[in-house]
C-alpha cells in the first residue's frame, strides 16, 4: 500500500499526457495498477479484470482519448486500497474515488458525449453516495454510543445507498436505461471493476459495527430477494442483450447483497465474503465478455456458452463456486429461506441466459482484440475447474483487514 501515492501521481501525470498520446494513459494506468498489486489471489484477479477493462477500452474511439485509461486505473487503485484500508475516512474516500470516474466514463462513446445517460446515472449515484456516506458515519456513531434505534436507521441508509449504487432492485431503474443507451465498453467498466469497492466498504463497516438485531437481517434479506426476483423476472421477457445483461446485473447484485446478511455473523463472514467476491468476479468477467460482444455485435461461440453457463451457475465454472459459497454461507448462518429463494431464482435465470446464447450463436464477425478479450474471460471462468481454495484463503487473509480502526 506504500505505493498508493506514487500510483496516484503516475495516474495524474499520464492522464495529463494522454490527451496528446493515447497510449501514455494506458501505460500510466498499467504502471499504477501494477504498483498497487498485492500478492493476494483475489487482488490478482481484480487486477486481471482491470487489465481486461483497460484493454477493452481500445475498442472504442472515445472522446476521452486516453483519459479513460487513467480513470479505470484510478478505480483499480482505489479498489486495491479499499481492500486493505482500515480507516473509515479512507474507505469512504475510496468509495467516492471508485465511483466518480464512472460518471465520466458513462458519457463516453465513439462519437458524441451522451449527456442524457450521464445525467440519469449521476443523479442516482449522488443519491446513493449521500445515503451511503451518512449511513456509514451514523453506523459508526451509533455503535460507539450504543444507540440501537439510530443504528437501525443508519444501517438501512447504508444498505439503500449501496443498493442504489450497485443497481439492486427495487432501486434498479437506472440500470436498464444506462446499460442500454450508454456505449457498451464503459458499461462493462461500470458493471465490473467499479462494483468491488461498494461491497468491500459495506462489508467492512457492517461487520465492524454490528450490534445485533434480526430486523436488519430481515431487511437485507428482503432487499436481496426482491432484487433477485426483479432482475430475473425482468430479464425473462427482455430480448435486447444489453437489457438482459442489465437485469442480470440486478439479479446478481441481489445474490451478493444477501451475503451482507451473513456479514452479521462474524463466524462465517469469510465464506460470505469469498462468495460475494467470487460472484463479483464472475459478474465482471461475464459482463466484460458480453459487452464486448455487444460492442462488436458478434462473439466467439464456445466462449458465449461458457460465459452463459457460468452465469447460470454450472459447475465447475466460476459462477457455480460463487453461488456455492454464497449458498453455503447462507445455510451456515441459518438463513435457509434466502438460500431457497436464491435457488429458485437461479433456475429462473436459465431461459434468458440461453437466449443470450441464441442471440450470439450465429454471429461471427468481430475484431481480433474483441475475440481475444472474450476468450480470456471465458478461460478465466474455467480456472475453477480446480476447486478455488485460493478465494477462501484470500478471504481469510483479508478478514484481518475487516475491522475498521477506532470503532
Amino acid at each position, binding site marked *: 500500500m506504500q505505493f498508493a501515492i506514487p500510483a496516484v501521481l503516475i495516474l495524474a501525470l499520464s492522464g495529463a499526457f494522454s490527451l496528446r498520446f493515447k497510449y501514455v494513459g494506458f501505460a500510466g494506468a498499467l504502471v499504477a495498477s501494477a504498483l498497487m498489486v498485492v500478492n493476494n489471489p483475489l487482488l490478482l484477479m481484480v487486477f486481471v479484470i482491470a487489465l481486461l477493462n483497460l484493454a477493452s477500452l481500445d475498442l472504442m474511439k472515445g472522446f476521452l482519448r486516453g483519459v479513460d485509461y487513467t480513470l479505470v486505473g484510478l478505480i483499480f487503485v482505489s479498489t486495491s486500497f479499499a481492500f486493505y484500508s482500515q480507516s473509515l475516512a479512507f474507505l469512504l474516500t475510496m468509495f467516492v474515488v471508485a465511483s466518480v470516474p464512472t460518471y465520466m466514463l458513462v458519457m463516453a462513446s465513439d462519437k458524441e458525449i451522451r449527456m442524457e445517460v450521464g445525467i*440519469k446515472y449521476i*443523479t442516482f449515484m449522488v443519491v446513493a453516495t449521500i445515503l451511503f456516506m451518512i449511513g456509514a458515519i451514523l453506523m459508526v456513531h451509533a455503535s460507539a454510543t450504543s444507540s440501537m434505534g439510530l443504528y*437501525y*436507521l443508519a444501517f438501512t441508509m447504508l444498505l439503500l445507498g449501496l443498493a442504489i449504487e450497485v443497481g439492486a432492485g427495487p432501486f434498479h431503474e437506472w440500470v*436498464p*436505461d444506462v446499460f442500454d443507451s450508454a456505449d457498451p465498453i464503459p458499461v462493462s467498466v461500470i458493471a465490473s471493476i467499479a462494483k468491488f469497492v461498494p461491497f468491500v466498504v459495506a462489508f467492512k463497516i457492517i461487520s465492524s459495527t454490528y450490534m445485533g438485531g434480526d430486523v436488519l437481517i430481515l431487511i437485507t434479506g428482503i432487499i436481496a430477494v426482491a432484487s433477485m426476483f426483479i432482475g430475473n*423476472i*425482468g*430479464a425473462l421477457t427482455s430480448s435486447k442483450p444489453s437489457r438482459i445483461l442489465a437485469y442480470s446485473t440486478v439479479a446478481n447484485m441481489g445474490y451478493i447483497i444477501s451475503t451482507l446478511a451473513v456479514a452479521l455473523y462474524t463466524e462465517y463472514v469469510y465464506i460470505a465474503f469469498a462468495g460475494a467476491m467470487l460472484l463479483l468476479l464472475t459478474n465482471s468477467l461475464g459482463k466484460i465478455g458480453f459487452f464486448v460482444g455487444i460492442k462488436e455485435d458478434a462473439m466467439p461461440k464456445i466462449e458465449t456458452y461458457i460465459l452463459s453457463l457460468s452465469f447460470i451457475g454450472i459447475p465447475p465454472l466460476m459462477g457455480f463456486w460463487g453461488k456455492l459459497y454464497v449458498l453455503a454461507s447462507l445455510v451456515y448462518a441459518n438463513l435457509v429461506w434466502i438460500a431457497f429463494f436464491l435457488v429458485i431464482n437461479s433456475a429462473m435465470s436459465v431461459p434468458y441466459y440461453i437466449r443470450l446464447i441464441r442471440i450470439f450463436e450465429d454471429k461471427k464477425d468481430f475484431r481480433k482484440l474483441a475475440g481475444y478479450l472474450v476468450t480470456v474471460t471465458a478461460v478465466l471462468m474455467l480456472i475453477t475447474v480446480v476447486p478455488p481454495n485460493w478465494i477462501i484463503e484470500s478471504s481469510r487473509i483479508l478478514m484481518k483487514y475487516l475491522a475498521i480502526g477506532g470503532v
Partner: protein
Amino acid sequence: METAALMELELNPGIWLMLFFAPILASFPIAFIWPKRQDSFARKLSILSVLGLFVSFLITVFILFRVEEGRYVYPWLPSIGINFVFVVDYLSKYMGALTGFIAFTIGVYGLEYMKDDYRLGWYWFFFNLFTASMLLVVYSDNLLMLLIGWEGLGIASWGLIGHWFRDDDELSYVGVIDRKMGPLKMFWSPSTGGWRAISTIRVGDMPMFLAVAAIFALTGTLDISRIPWAELFENIGMAGTVILLFAFLMGPFTKSAQLPFSEWLMTAMTGPTTVSALLHSATMVAAGTYLFMRVSWYIKPWEIQLAGVEIIYILVLSLGLISSLYGASVALASRERKVLLAASTMSSLGLMFASSAASFWIGEFAIVVAFWYLITHAFAKATLFLVAGHIIHETHDRFLGGDREVFSKMKLTALVTLFATITLAGIPPLTAYWVKSAMDEVMEKLVHEVNILPFAFLVTISVIYSAFLAKFFALNFWKGRHVHLHLHGGGVMKTAYTAMVSMLLVLLAVIYLGIDHAAEEFIKAGTVEVSFMVGILVLVAYVAGFIKPEHENFIGKILYDRVYVMLLNDYLIPKIGWAIAWIVDIFNRFLDFTAHTFIPALFGGISVSIRAVQSGSLERYAKIVVSFVLAILFIVSIVGWF
C-alpha cells in the same frame, strides 16, 4: 403312502440344463433366421425344434424311471439361501413325463399343422420356451425358481395366443364375427385374446409373487418341501394365513381360469390349435392346480387344523366346484369346437381344485385323486383338441358341424374321438371311471365333514360333462350339419393324436395291473355301489347327449354367451380403468398447463410490468426510488424505536 422327508441327492447338473435348455436352444435357429428369410430351408428348421422337445421328453422319462426321489440342489443365490432346487417326487416325476410326452407329441403334430404358417420362428420359440418353463414349474421345489417358470408360462401363453397377430384370419377368431350383445362385442381376435390372457394372468401372478416374497420374509426359505408351514401359519395368525394363502392362490386361480378369471381361457382359443391343446388344456392351465397340489402335498393341511387354513381350503373347494359347474354348463351350450373344449377344461380344472382341497379333511389321498384326474384329463383333452384342430383344418370351419360323411371319411379320427370322450366322461370300466370313482368317494366323505353339496355338485358336473362330450362327438361326426371336407395329408396329425389317446390305455393298464400304489384304491372305489351308480348315470347322460345333441332354450342362450362373464373383462374393468385414466389425464394436463403455460405466462406478465417501469423518464425513476427509500427508512425507524 407316507411322504418321508426328501433327501438331498446328487445329479449331474448337465441333465437339468439339458432338460430346460435343449428345447430353447433348439428353437434359436429358426427364431433368428425367420425374420430374415421364410424359405423352405427355414421351414425345415422346425424339425430341429421338435428334436429339442424330444430331448426333453427323453430326459423326463429318464427321470421318471431312473432318478431317485429326492431334492437336487444347485447354487443360485446362496447368499440369501435361495437355490435351484429340483424335486423328484410322486407328483413331479409323473407330471414331468406327462409334459415331456404331450409337448413332444403335439410338437410333431405341429410340424404338419403349422407347416404353411407365416410366423414359424415366433411359434417354435414360444412353444419350446413354454415347454421348458412348464418343466421348470413341474420340477421346482424352490418357489422363486418356480416363478421363473411361471412367468415363462405367462409370456409363452401370450405369445402363442396372439400368434396370428394380424387378426386377418376369420378362422383364428372366437365368437361369431360382428355379433353384438348390448355394449359387448361377442367376438375376439387373436391380439385381443393374447392381451386378455396376459392381463388376467398378471392380476394373479403379482399377488402370488407377493406371497412368495412374504414366505421368504417370514421363514427365510423358499423350498416348498422345507418351509415350516404349520409354524408359519401359527405365527401369522388367522388373518395372516388367509391373506397369504389367498394371495398365493391368486396365481393358480387365474392361471387355471377359475371364476371370475375364466374368460381369458375362452378367447385363448384364438391361438393355433396345437397351442390350445398343449397350453390351454393339458399343461399350462393345469399348472395352477398342479401347484396347489404340490403345495398342499407339503403343507399337509390334514395335520394342521387351523381356522385360517380351513377357510382357504373351503374357499378353494367351493370355487373349484362352482367354476366346474359353470364350465360344464357353458361347454354344454357352446357351438364352437375349441370353445367347448376350453370350457370343459375349465370344468375339469375346477374338479381338480375341489378334489385337492378336500385333502384338508381326507388327507393325501385326495391330492392323489386330483393328480390322477389331471393326468387322465390331460391326455384325453389333448387328444380332443388335436382332433378338433384336424377337423378345423379339413373343414375350414371352427363351429361344430359334420355329418356321417365326416365319420366315414375320417374314421380313425372319429374312433379316437369316441374313445377319448367316453373315457374322459367316466363311463365304466374305462380310465376316468376309476379316477372319478375315487373322487366320488372323496366327496362322499365330505358329506360328514362339510355337507352334501360337494358330492351333489360332483354328480351334476359329471352328468353334464358326459353330455357335452357326447354332443361334441355327435355334432362333429354324426348328426351335425353338412360340411365341406378338404381332405389332404393329415398323416402326421393322425399319428400324433392316436399316440396321445393310446396313453389312456396305458393308464388303464396301470390301474388294472396295480402298477401304481394308488391303483388299488381306485379299483376299490370303483367297485363301490355309489360309484357304479354315478357311472351308470354318466352313461345315460352320454347316450342322451348323443341322441339329442341340440336343444334350444332360454337358459342355453345365456350359457352360450357364457353367462356374460366377459362383461368383467370387456366392459366393467376397462370402463373403470379408462375412467381413471381419463381423470389422470386431466390431472396431468392441468399440471402441465400450470407449470408450462400458466406460470411462465404469469412471470412473463410480471416481467413486462417490471420492464414497463423503464419509461426513460428520470423524474419518474427518482420518484420511485425516493418513495421506496423513504418508506423503508420510515418502517425501520419505527421498528428501531421499539
